[in-house]
């Protein structure tokens, strides 16, 4: 009997990267090699543990540190001394000191490339296809837009990664979310991911790595893909990815840490082998039609509690499950809304355009397109994701557009998304925000958050209420 020809089962993008990083297997867990680790000021707990155990950083050249969570977004010309709150200043001082002590590349408060840890590594070409990346932040999924496995971990795991350059993991299930067709007028990548999270729920992706696929993604810029991967965690998935393609390669070429000369050719040849094979199987498949997605806003206190801006606040009495109904009622109460209220009637006090979800150059361009149509009637901040984005926006004159329309143009950082640098809402204040989380108190104790795209946030600034940006743009 002839031997059957051995065939390799079709493999997914995730399989290919995961398998190559397995150092050893121990029971249900594998020890994975970590190519690059990203930390921010909050890694103080991980450094404390290292110190406590008398350990050092195993591969300091593969760890990158960013000052973003605690940096102020005004008065930066005064550097550290511009930070009045000693506890906040100390978080930055400690990161600087720890990076210095362990020989870690630091994008510090005064660095010309300073910015958010999910904005700077792509810009610098540190994020590349095929890598295993761990970040001390749940939005590390952002980097998956380049076709790498990137996920957030806590302080203990980050300490382990720094001490060993590896991490114990158990296999994840695979989910493919396919989005096909052309996005409608005024509809942005943020609307796509808000629609996905609303569809599958805040725990719909738990235990899975999501691969985003389909013609909509293929046509989308790296910035858009990053926005989508960024919020994978809001559906419970620690990682989200997009297969690398010409868009990815073109974005990376020539960046500071991107491979050069013959290294580029070798890397490129490897990167092209990464996309999932035809016929690869996934544990779960979800499909969305891009033309059916409308500009989204959240009304509640988790990222799945969202709806098209043309919709209304739901009525808990329409929710069958008692606990789910209670959850909706509690969200509506916290948000100070009423069931059945049109989302377009919700007035806002503040507008925030920024965060690792939406502070890249394309986001600022989209917001500026809308901002130039009028004047902000409420306090509206624009916080670029990095010094690089800030400079580019200024070269394009976007800062002038924002200023002329009454928006505040600030310095790069996480700012009002994570609200720990001193930028925060006052109790009861309501904010139209391009960030990723609308949890109770996320933007400050008692603050209320509505998530949306940059263009939608700019529209809310001009109208002082949640507004369908399509109407504004059509009237132009």
């Amino acid at each position, binding site marked *: 009997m002839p031997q059957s020809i051995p065939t390799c089962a079709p493999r997914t993008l995730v399989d290919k990267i995961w398998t190559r990083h397995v150092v050893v297997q121990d029971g249900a867990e594998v020890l994975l090699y970590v190519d690059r680790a990203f930390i921010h000021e909050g890694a103080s707990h991980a450094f404390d543990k290292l110190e406590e155990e008398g350990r050092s950083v195993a591969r300091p050249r593969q760890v990158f540190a960013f000052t973003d969570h605690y940096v102020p977004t005004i008065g930066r010309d005064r550097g550290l001394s511009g930070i009045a709150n000693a506890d906040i200043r100390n978080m930055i001082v400690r990161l600087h000191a720890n990076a210095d002590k362990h020989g870690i590349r630091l994008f510090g408060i005064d660095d010309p490339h300073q910015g958010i840890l999910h904005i700077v590594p792509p810009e610098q070409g540190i994020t590349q296809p095929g890598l295993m990346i761990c970040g001390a932040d749940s939005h590390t999924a952002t980097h998956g837009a380049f076709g790498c496995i990137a996920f957030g971990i806590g302080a*203990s795991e980050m300490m*382990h990664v720094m001490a060993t350059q590896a991490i114990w993991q158990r296999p994840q299930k695979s989910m493919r979310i396919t989005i096909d067709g052309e996005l409608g007028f005024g509809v942005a990548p943020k609307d796509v991911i808000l629609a996905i999270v609303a569809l599958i729920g805040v725990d719909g992706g738990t235990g899975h790595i999501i691969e985003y696929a389909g013609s909509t993604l293929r046509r989308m810029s790296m910035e858009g893909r990053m926005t989508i991967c960024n919020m994978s965690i809001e559906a419970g998935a620690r990682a989200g990815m997009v297969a690398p393609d010409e868009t990815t390669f073109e974005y990376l070429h020539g960046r500071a840490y991107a491979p050069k000369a013959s290294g580029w050719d070798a890397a490129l040849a490897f990167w092209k082998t990464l996309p999932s094979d035809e016929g690869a199987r996934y544990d779960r498949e979800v499909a969305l039609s891009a033309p059916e997605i409308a500009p989204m806003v959240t009304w509640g206190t988790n990222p799945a509690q969202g709806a098209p801006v043309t919709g209304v606040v739901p009525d808990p009495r329409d929710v069958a499950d008692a606990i789910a109904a209670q959850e909706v009622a509690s969200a509506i109460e916290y948000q100070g809304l009423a069931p059945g209220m049109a989302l377009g009637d919700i007035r806002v006090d503040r507008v925030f355009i920024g965060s690792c979800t939406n502070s890249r150059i394309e986001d600022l361009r989209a917001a500026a397109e809308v901002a130039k149509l009028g004047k902000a009637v409420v306090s509206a901040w624009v916080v670029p994701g990095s010094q690089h984005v800030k400079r580019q926006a200024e070269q394009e004159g976007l800062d002038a557009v924002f200023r002329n329309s009454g928006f505040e143009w600030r310095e790069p950082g996480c700012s009002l998304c994570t609200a720990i640098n001193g930028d925060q809402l006052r109790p009861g204040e309501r904010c139209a925000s391009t960030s990723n989380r609308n949890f109770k108190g996320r933007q400050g*104790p008692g603050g209320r958050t509505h998530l949306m795209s940059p263009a939608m946030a700019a529209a809310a600034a001009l109208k002082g209420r949640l507004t369908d940006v399509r109407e504004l743009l059509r009237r132009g």
Partner: protein
Amino acid sequence: MNPFARISAIAVPIDEPNVDTNQLCPTRFNKLPRGPAYARVLFHDRRFNADGSEKEHILNAEPFNRAQIIVADRNWGSGSSRESAVYALYEFGIRCIIAPSFADIHLNNCYKNGLLPVVLGEAECEALRGQLRDRPGATIAVDLDAQTVTDARGGIHRFDIDPVRKKCLLEGLDDIARTLQYQRAFEAFEADYRNERAWLYA
């Protein structure tokens, strides 16, 4: 890490799905060094007014302020990766959380700090919470070695746990010791990997 073997303790019901880590530890407390101050951080903004006075909250009231077990609802610990959420639970005195499901990163953070997450069915958790509401101060027993939860009425519920995680919790082992056993495999792996992907190390 402190080992976990078994406890019999007051359990508190938290009837709310999708409790996120911003509730367990509001962001501004992330910068606190680990220590007893975290006991007050747990659910801080729901438990305390701006002036520091107590609000009405189940964790502020006798006997639940002495609880060491939480019986929760689905998707406990969603959101941010902050390990401070676990510090808050631990310093408050919580050693075990029973829920129908956990968010991924928070689940790992629990394991790494000697806090046992137990997954039971949605109906079982609801029944347990009902018992605790009916008899405030009732105790639940959790035996990791036997993989059982004994509820307030003496009912026994078996739970699954990965053998590696079980061993680490029972013995209070941290991962680094485990990883260092494989140092030679790691070095061989890395040499080969660096050779294959030289562009990453140029």
